[in-house]
């Protein structure tokens, strides 16, 4: 195989994995990012970073769950410290039907009784009568992981350029480039007119009173909610899903919903410190399935990762690498534009 010259636009989770994957395979890779500082405009900065292919299958198309299962071993290979502690899914006693509904829609779980919940998460003792446990799911501290990915890509030989005003004007300007891969999320909304933004609001809290060692999802008919331990007593709570690309600050209503759910999970969170409220805009296609868009032979878009950036980025990176090296379209996610 001859190594290729490849420019990647966008240093969010998608671009970082793509750069790392191609550089490790021996290609000459440049990563170009609009923001002057890393991650200032990356929606993945606000991700929960749960690797939860089974839980996500509750509302996502089957392909998302299928590819998501392939992602955990890829993550584990590059991040041997990846925690595979599973996911705990709970519902308040009066919303037990939500839990049954969730169980019916998903695989990879078993039912737990109160005692088993206590064994897994001692701080949740005596609060819930039953739960679903998705043993093989994993989670990451997303921000540290993105910093690690950036460093690993650099070590693998990726050349980084931050603060490039309009990265799309880089488009194959240099004939030395064999491929241009656009991973700019909402930045590509003009080139990909079907792309839309889906607003997600999240909070970060710090609690020394409550210890959780895995993501916990609390089901509710109107406000589904999750809390992800980020380490160092820090927890992310999220996330709203609103059909809007408005990047404005978190609304009071969303903040109330998120905080009320944390309090419902454990009143001990009432003493938690509020560290951050943020809004991210997830790029999505109308079917909420990511796409590898082959714009022409040398120009590729990877976009529409929606809620599944951390879950699917390494898999999409592998699929794209395979296409570049063999010229064969092997994935149903690839479409020609």
């Amino acid at each position, binding site marked *: 195989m001859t190594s290729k010259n490849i420019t990647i636009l966008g240093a969010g989770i998608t671009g970082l994995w793509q750069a790392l994957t191609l550089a490790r395979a021996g290609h000459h890779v440049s990563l170009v990012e609009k923001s002057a500082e890393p991650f200032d405009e990356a929606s993945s900065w606000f991700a929960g970073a749960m690797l939860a292919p089974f839980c996500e299958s509750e509302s*996502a198309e089957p392909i998302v769950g299928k590819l998501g299962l392939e992602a955990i071993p890829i993550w584990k290979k590059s991040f041997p410290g990846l925690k595979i502690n599973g996911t705990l899914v709970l519902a308040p006693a009066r919303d037990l039907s939500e839990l049954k509904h969730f169980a019916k*829609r998903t695989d990879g779980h078993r039912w737990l009784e109160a005692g088993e919940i206590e064994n897994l998460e001692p701080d949740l003792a005596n609060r819930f009568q039953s739960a679903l446990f998705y043993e093989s799911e994993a989670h990451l501290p997303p921000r540290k992981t993105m910093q690690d990915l950036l460093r690993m890509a650099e070590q693998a030989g990726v050349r980084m350029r931050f603060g490039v005003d309009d990265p799309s004007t880089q488009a194959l300007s240099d004939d030395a480039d064999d491929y241009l891969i656009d991973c700019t999320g909402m930045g590509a909304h003009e080139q990909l007119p079907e792309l*839309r933004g889906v607003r997600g609001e999240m909070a970060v809290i710090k609690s020394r009173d409550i210890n959780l060692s895995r993501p916990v999802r609390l089901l509710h008919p109107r406000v589904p909610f999750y809390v992800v331990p980020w380490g160092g007593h820090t927890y992310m709570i999220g996330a709203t899903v*609103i059909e809007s690309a408005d990047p404005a600050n978190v609304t009071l209503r969303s903040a109330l919903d998120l905080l009320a759910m944390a309090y419902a999970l454990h009143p001990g969170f009432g003493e938690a410190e509020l560290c951050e409220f943020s809004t991210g805009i997830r790029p999505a296609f109308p079917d*909420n*399935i990511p796409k590898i868009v082959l714009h022409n032979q040398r120009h590729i878009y990877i976009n529409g990762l929606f809620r599944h950036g951390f879950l699917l980025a390494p898999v999409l990176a592998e699929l794209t690498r395979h296409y570049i090296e063999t010229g064969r379209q092997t994935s149903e996610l690839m479409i020609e534009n």
Partner: protein
Amino acid sequence: MNIIDPAPVRKETPLKLYGEEFHSRLLLGTAQYPSPKILCDAVKASRTEIVTISLRRENARQKEGRKFIDLIGSLDVRLLPNTAGCNSVKEAVATAEMARELFDTPWIKLEVIANNDTLQPDLLGLLGAARVLLRDGFKVLPYMTEDLSIAEKLIEAGCEVLMPWGAPIGTGQGLRNPEALKTLRAYFPDIPLIIDAGIGAPSHAALAMEFGYDAILLNTAVAKAHDPVTMAKAFALAIDAGRNAHVAGLMEPRDMAAPSTPIAGTPFT
């Protein structure tokens, strides 16, 4: 002359709301679908001509939120904006005014919620907001309970259609108070009545149509189905079945068995 002419199937009268005619008797909500694509496919499968859309949560007033609305707008159905999430007359009126401007329609599904936990309609607030909006030229479709007195006052205020709940929003419990719903139907034989909320299964919708209700408005039962597109079709069929049964005239249940074949003269018994 052929003496056994096939009986003509009774011609279905269209549903008439504020002077407009509709051939589908299903109104579909647009929230909570797995993806906009599935929503669009479900709308098509349901054959609905009216879809509701929430203004508050989708931040429609922002230019950036338009992508989702544009997608629904491309479906060639009437958009019925709602005031979901409003807890006061003032909020509901302001939301309705924004919706009229944004969607260019005077139609509004009026919801004033008394309690955020049960989503019980605030009937006094509903009446207050309906009076303001009707005076201002809106075509109000009020989301109410099956209460007769409030129904009467809403009609006096100028509402030409009423939308009583089957059960609280999103519960899927079906018709929780069927006798009261029958009474409401009997009391207002000429006002279009639409069951709005609480429908969980196509059989619930069919039953309401058998009672003589004019249409069904639902969302969660389709959006949260494992296969929303097929469920949308199932509801369309059930609503057709219930409507046809009502038009055809249902038999009255009897206490005693009555053979459908006469016994007298049956040979070999």
